[in-house]
């Protein structure tokens, strides 16, 4: 009987070739170079430092409070209101025969112009407090009849503009907290536009209103004023207080830019006919109507500084191997070159992600608290958005560092690699900050360049019923947050593949 011979198999062999071993080797390299670890700590600290700087340098103490709508969002609630109290249920009907707008041309002289979202119609509102809930039905200059409520909701009714030849009849019926809006082209055949539920309290204020939001002019927007002619005003139900009283609601609000050319709101009444002139808007606030407001993205501007630090470390993580000739040892120990690159990318990405997340999680609440203490209004965000901004910022930094690693592998020269990646991500942002840059080009730049990734920090919403210049620089990106980051990730993936190919083909 011959004894079976077990061939010698070293137990460690498999492990040394394993990917985990490779990761461990790269992690050891990373953590033992003091400059790289310092670079990551500096990156996290820069995010926090800039947030603190942004918070303490702002001073808006004593500015008028921003009106807040029922959903917690900042709103514009400034318009000319001709109203009477409405106790309990009731209805109101009116016809609108003209709606004309004027905008300043040149040196402040008013000229007739088109203000697409100029509004005139009926409104029932909880009270005259700014930001209180309401439901309204209105004619607009270019968007037909609309029913709107609670600042953010908008329903389309009869299309077409209003004129003396195509008069529009409007009606609101209140039954408890349910408001039904109807429109008619002849005053007899009515079409229901919608029914909404709005918390109005026992005694609401109802009546006529005119609002005239800023209109586009050239590269910016300009204030406007509109006048509407109403007729056949009829009320039924619990309307009290015999006289109609007119007032400009929210004249001293930070979301109201005032009347152009020193004008003012007014109304005249003769029988059931009214002429009402007003400015302002009843709508959610956007960056342009609330320029003093800050966003979470503003607080996290330090990400730009952190980006430069992580790009430098990312490029050095590979170019130092070439400079010190360590690459020969690395590739001799692990001849499968693509796996070396992958291990480096994973270690670098993970470290950067952790550093970026730590920075963002500390910086955002700290900066916001300091800014609020100085009276700055910060656009509100939900907790899921908060989480997305923090994770997205960390992912942006991690992806950028891996891009720097890939470009460093391709160039084998840190100076060119660092410059290429910084220029690719930061320069488009500087270009869109240029006031001459048309919005279409800014949108294009933030779609196709790696700078699209900044979209991951956006927290503002665009509203189709609010005319504004939604520029990327103001925090309105053309791509959704994660889609923007995916653009940078695409560039990084491409860079990584090219890097793997050249690493494989070239002599080290």
């Amino acid at each position, binding site marked *: 009987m011959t004894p079976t011979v077990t061939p010698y198999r070293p137990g460690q062999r498999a492990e040394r070739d394993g990917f985990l071993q490779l990761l461990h080797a790269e992690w050891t390299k990373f953590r033992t170079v003091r400059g790289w670890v310092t670079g990551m700590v500096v990156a996290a600290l820069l995010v926090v430092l800039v947030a603190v700087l*942004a918070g303490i*340098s702002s001073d808006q103490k004593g500015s008028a409070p921003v009106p807040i709508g029922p959903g917690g969002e900042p709103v514009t609630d400034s318009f000319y209101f001709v109203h009477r109290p409405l106790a309990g249920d009731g209805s109101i009907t009116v016809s609108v025969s003209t709606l004309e707008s004027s905008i300043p041309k040149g040196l402040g002289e008013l000229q007739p112009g088109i203000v697409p979202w100029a509004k005139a119609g009926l409104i029932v509102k909880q009270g005259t407090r700014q930001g209180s809930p309401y439901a309204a039905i209105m004619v607009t200059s270019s968007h037909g009849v609309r029913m709107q409520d609670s600042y953010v909701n908008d329903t389309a009714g009869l299309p077409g503009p209003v004129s003396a030849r195509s008069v529009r009849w409007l009606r609101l019926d209140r039954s408890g907290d349910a408001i039904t809006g109807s429109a008619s082209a002849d005053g007899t055949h009515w079409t229901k536009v919608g029914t909404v539920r709005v918390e109005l309290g026992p005694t609401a204020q109802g009546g006529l209103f005119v609002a005239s939001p800023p209109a586009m002019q050239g590269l910016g927007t300009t204030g406007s004023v509109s006048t509407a002619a109403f007729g056949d005003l009829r009320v039924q139900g619990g309307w009290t207080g015999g006289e109609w009283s007119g007032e400009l609601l929210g004249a001293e609000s930070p979301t109201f830019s005032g009347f152009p050319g020193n004008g003012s709101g007014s109304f005249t009444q003769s029988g059931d006919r009214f002429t009402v002139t007003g400015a302002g808007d009843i709508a959610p606030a956007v960056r342009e109507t609330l320029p003093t407001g*800050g966003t979470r993205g503003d607080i996290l501007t330090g990400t*730009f500084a952190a980006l430069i630090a992580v790009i430098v470390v990312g490029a050095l993580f590979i*170019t130092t191997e070439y400079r010190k000739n360590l690459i020969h040892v690395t590739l001799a120990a692990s001849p499968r070159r693509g796996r070396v690159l992958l291990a480096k990318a994973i270690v670098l990405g993970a470290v950067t992600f952790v550093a970026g997340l730590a920075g963002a999680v500390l910086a955002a609440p700290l900066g916001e608290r300091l*800014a609020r203490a*100085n009276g700055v209004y910060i656009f509100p965000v939900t907790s899921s958005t908060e989480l997305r901004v923090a994770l997205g910022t960390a992912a942006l930094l991690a992806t950028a560092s891996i891009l720097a690693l890939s470009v460093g592998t391709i160039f084998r020269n840190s*100076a060119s690699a*660092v410059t290429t990646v910084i220029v690719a991500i930061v320069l488009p942002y500087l270009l869109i900050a240029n006031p001459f840059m048309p919005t279409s080009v800014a949108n294009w730049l933030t779609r196709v360049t790696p700078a699209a990734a900044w979209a991951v920090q956006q927290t503002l919403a665009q509203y189709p019923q609010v005319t504004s210049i939604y520029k990327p620089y103001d925090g309105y990106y053309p791509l959704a947050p994660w889609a923007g980051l995916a653009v940078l990730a695409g560039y990084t993936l491409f860079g990584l593949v090219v890097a793997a190919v050249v690493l494989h083909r070239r002599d080290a």
Partner: protein
Amino acid sequence: MRPALHAEWTKLRTVAGPLWLLLGMIAATMALSAGAISVVTCRSAGCGADLTRLSLMGVELGQALAVILAVLIISGEYSSGMIRTTLTAIPHRTTVLAAKAITLSAVVAVAGTTAVLGSLLAGRLILPRHGFTAARGHPALSLADGPTLRASAGSILYQILIALLSVGIAAIVRDSATSIGVILGLLYLLPVLSQVIGNPHGQRLLQQLGPMSAGLAIQATTDLRNLPIGPWAGLGVTAGWAAAALLAGGLLLRMRDA
């Protein structure tokens, strides 16, 4: 000094990198300028854009390549160990730094002039086709126009100053990646960071101090009163940065072991 200059010129001339970087600088400047010009249109009188500045926008990108070249001239020698040979041949270290600065200034001046003239020519050819005509108050760009001449000459000086600033910082930092990070941070970050400073005075101060935001004021030809800093004063700030960096770099080069 002459041998040092000759040596630096030979080093610059006999490797392929610098030539490509200079050609890249010209191409990048002109490409971005042409891109910026071709996206603006004027439909009625008084569009109010600063066309000279717009036509010279490419300098914001082109300077990055001048920065790479400047950094490589210094830290390239450190990474390859060449610096020891250089300093053995010419032990007077200030002379070495001066020779490097002069050689670099000369080549950046040539490339910068080409890039600036090319960008202006692009503006002169493209802008009238986009509605910026003399009839609408926008005469074709011309060096005979005082502000445009100042903006063009100033842009060339600006690029030289940025190259000198980069030489100084590279001599301080020595590592190329870190030098580039510091320089591009100074150039590109300060304008971005100044936006978060809520205090308008602090914001203005930061724009007056930034080497790029102050220096590029030299390109403005309209609305000079609303600039954070005057054109020549702004270029003076950039010159101050370059001088300080060169001085500190020169001192450290003398004091430290290479």
